[in-house]
């Protein structure tokens, strides 16, 4: 009996370390389809699928980020009774595109510090944003910047959308119940990993460039595992040719644009004059 009592703590420690090892031995994996979004002449947006595995029991946060760029804005203010531009500001330090997805509400997945590290919510962005020139009302500028980005479709910060296994994760109080039932419905794969998946519509307003898709496996509010893959957005075919011409041979492009526009105008006039003439003749 006493021997059993002595062994119990050791057994517990052993079980915990095995569990911890199992968690650590199954890193988060990620596969993005397509890995390159090709924008041809009739490109109308794309569906992006993110899938992979995370250690069993993890909550999943997927963050899609664009490069950090400096953006210029006119600041609107009140002068007497009228609202006019009162100055210029530059905003930097935050990504051009930021889409957040998660298996549960993001506040359930990440603690405050982790949220700040991952740019997981509006407060995190407000802490990181740099506004020049510095002004007293910087927080209201940051607020307006976020509103503008959301309106443009370049920022999406509501979370949700990630499915663990086959079960849909709701963003209300049922999320944890779903997680509990998921263990039964979707038993861990080899090495203690469970599959996750996310499908979302790529924003049409996102520019050509390289984006980063980062998957975080979270537990107890901390990021335990992360995996990153790039997603390229490129123009192909006719649009690529036009863009290249506009940048590399600007003078020729300008002249060709004017000639084509004039020919289009005179051409339409020629056709219209024939049509109207025929109508008049018919009358």
């Amino acid at each position, binding site marked *: 009996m006493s021997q059993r009592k002595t062994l119990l703590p050791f057994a517990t420690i052993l079980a915990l370390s095995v569990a911890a090892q199992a968690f650590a031995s199954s890193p988060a994996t990620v596969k993005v389809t397509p890995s390159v979004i090709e*924008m*041809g*002449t*009739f*490109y*109308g*947006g794309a569906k992006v699928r993110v899938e992979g595995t995370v250690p069993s029991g993890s909550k999943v946060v997927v963050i899609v980020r664009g490069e950090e760029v400096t*953006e*210029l*804005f*006119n*600041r*609107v*203010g009140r*002068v007497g*009774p*009228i*609202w*006019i*531009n*009162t*100055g*210029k*500001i530059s905003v930097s330090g935050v990504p051009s595109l930021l889409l957040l997805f998660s298996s549960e509400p993001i506040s359930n997945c990440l603690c405050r510090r982790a949220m700040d590290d991952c740019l997981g919510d509006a407060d995190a962005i407000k802490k990181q944003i740099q506004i020049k020139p510095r002004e007293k009302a910087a927080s*209201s*500028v940051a607020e*307006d*910047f976020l*509103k*503008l980005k959301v309106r*443009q*479709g370049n920022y999406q910060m509501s979370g949700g959308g990630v499915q663990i296994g086959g079960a849909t994760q709701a963003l209300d109080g049922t999320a944890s119940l779903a997680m509990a039932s998921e263990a039964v419905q979707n038993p861990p794969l080899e090495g203690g990993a469970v599959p996750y998946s996310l499908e979302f519509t790529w924003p*049409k*307003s996102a*520019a*050509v460039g390289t984006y980063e898709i980062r998957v975080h496996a979270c537990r107890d509010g901390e990021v335990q595992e992360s995996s990153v893959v790039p997603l390229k957005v490129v*123009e192909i075919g006719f*649009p*690529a040719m*036009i*863009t290249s011409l*506009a940048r590399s041979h*600007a*003078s020729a*492009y*300008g002249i*060709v*644009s*004017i000639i*084509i*526009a*004039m020919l*289009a*105008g*005179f051409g*339409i*006039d020629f056709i*219209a*004059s024939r049509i*109207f003439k025929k109508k008049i003749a018919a009358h």
Partner: protein
Amino acid sequence: MPVLLPVAGISISLLWLVGAGAVVGFLSGLFGVGGGFLLTPILMMMGIPPTVAAASDSCQIVATSSSGTAAHFRLGNVDAKLGTVLLLGGLTGGAVGVHIIKFLRSIGSADLVITIAYVVVLGSIGGYMFWESLSNLRRGVMVPMTHAAAKRGGYLSRLPFQMDFPRSRVRHSVILPFLFCGMVGILAAIMGVGGGFIMVPMMVYLLRMPMHVAVGTDLFQILFTCAGVTYMQATTNHTVDLVLALLLAAGSTVGAQVGARVGRLLHGDQLKILLASIVLLVMVKMAIGLLTAPSILIIPMKGH
């Protein structure tokens, strides 16, 4: 059907672009205005970056004004001689206006001056045109815009370099249209628009040109002005999106043809009342915008 705008880098419904072009082209053909003051904000609302919207708009105006100029030329409404003088005056005024803007920016008053210029100029022109045309229509009298009116100019008729402009049925010193158009060019540069809706009333009221000839001649000078702007935007800012311009032009060139022909069906004063109404509507919208707090207090900057 979506279509990718390569320079803008975004995808937009083809029908929306052609439709927007058709509406603005119709107004262009009807009133001889370039339509920039309407189309650029519409494109920005569709999500096109302001720099690309403004530059591509200039390119599509080349197409629209080509179509409109050709249609008006066939109808005998283009005074190429006077149009050339106006063009030279407009370009000179535009260059002066750009320097004025630079100075105002350096002292931080540019935006205030531009905004007030918009409301005052649009309000004055629109209000006067509306009132004058309405009075004429009520009286049932068509005021002839001919030699008789021009001859009343007194000392203006004694200015040097007098020249006949037979198509417009007026005689003026070359200095007069050059100066007037120079002033419109300055205003257009300050206000950041082509200036068609200032130019047409100026031709009708100050140069005493018939409304239809003013419309045709304005389109003629807009064609060359916008061709120059397109070239400069393409070489300096690389923001001309040819696909966007051609799709807009597909609608606007047809719209301009219809507009030019509808214009022939309307009395000169009726045309003036319609143009005045649009000018006043834009002015009222601007005035409301000035007096009400916007929901977002930052605006992405135009690159020109």
